[in-house]
């Protein structure tokens, strides 16, 4: 599972686009044999700028496979270190660090 991040700085606003590879299984789907596919979905996504929390999102089963997010962070400048982390319902997590250019 991977995470791709693209950040564009315009003035002091950083436009962030995030694409996460994740099955986002709701736990309500059945496979071809009729068995329930176990739930596995991201629950929280956080973004820390220079180790300070600047964005937090609580996902649920309403978000579909391979989530794509787009949001703007305020008061940012070139050289800021952004750290993105998600944690899912089975305890898995992934992180990615990006430095604003």
């Amino acid at each position, binding site marked *: 599972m*991977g995470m*791709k991040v*693209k950040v564009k700085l315009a003035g002091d606003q950083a436009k962030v*686009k995030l*694409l996460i*590879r994740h099955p986002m299984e709701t736990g309500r789907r059945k496979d071809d044999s009729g068995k329930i596919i176990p739930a596995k979905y991201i629950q929280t996504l956080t973004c820390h700028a220079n180790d300070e929390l600047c964005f937090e999102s609580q996902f649920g089963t309403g978000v*579909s*496979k*391979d989530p*794509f997010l787009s949001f703007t962070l305020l008061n940012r400048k070139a050289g800021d270190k952004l750290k993105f982390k998600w944690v899912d319902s089975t305890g898995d997590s992934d992180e990615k660090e990006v430095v604003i250019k």
Partner: protein
Amino acid sequence: MIRLLTFVSLLLLGTVSAWAQTTDTTPAEDREALRKFFQSKFPDIPLDAYKDGAYIFDPKARAQFEEIEEFPPWEFDVEEGEELFNTPFKNGKTYADCFENGGIGIAQKYPLWDEKRQEVVTLPYAINLCREANGEQPLPYEKSDLLKVQAYMAYTSRGKRIEAPEPTGKALEAYKKGREYYYSKRGQLDMTCANCHLQHAASRLRYELPGPLLGQTTHWPVYRSKWEELGDIQRRYKECNKQVRAKDLPYQAEEYRNLQYYMHLMDVGLEFNGPSSRK
């Protein structure tokens, strides 16, 4: 009386077949006629724009499409496809050994007429032929790693021009079969491909804008939001047939390959821009 009738009907038949022969057009003529059709209907849309399908007719949809293209959902698939493409088979060979130029920058030539196999070969078909020739199991044409390999190969062809040698002989016959399929009514809804993609391209069917025939093969495989994954053009053929309640054919059926060959010949010279995303 009967002799007269027989003579008249034979004369008519002769005339009809002669008429059919003199009005049968070459692929180059068909291509020219198709371009004239769209360019006279939409004089403000340049030929090169048709690679983006229905989005050229709706500015709002186009704006959303361009934003998605900045960070497309198929990027992971191309990366994973590159890894798969470079992973050797059990016998030590790789996909590169099956294709011209090692498989790089050649996707825009498919589907092509394979003289040895005496049939039309599409890119996914060629990928599986490669696997089988190297002792590997063929992959399903839907929802499998095959799409990722196809996406990677398509990505290496971005920006190239669609090319195809003008068909003759058996290849020309396959082209004509594909063309006939395109214009034949089928299904409970009694529709042809042309009803939606020629007559109603750029006009609403319910809320949807059907993509025009011109440029329809340039951007595959496609990440369709509806599928939440990449799919081949033949996945769409199967959906279209189900939608008009016609007989669904299996992937890479001869009819689908011939149809794809016809559509490919219509796009010669246009820019290849696979993979792409659609709604």
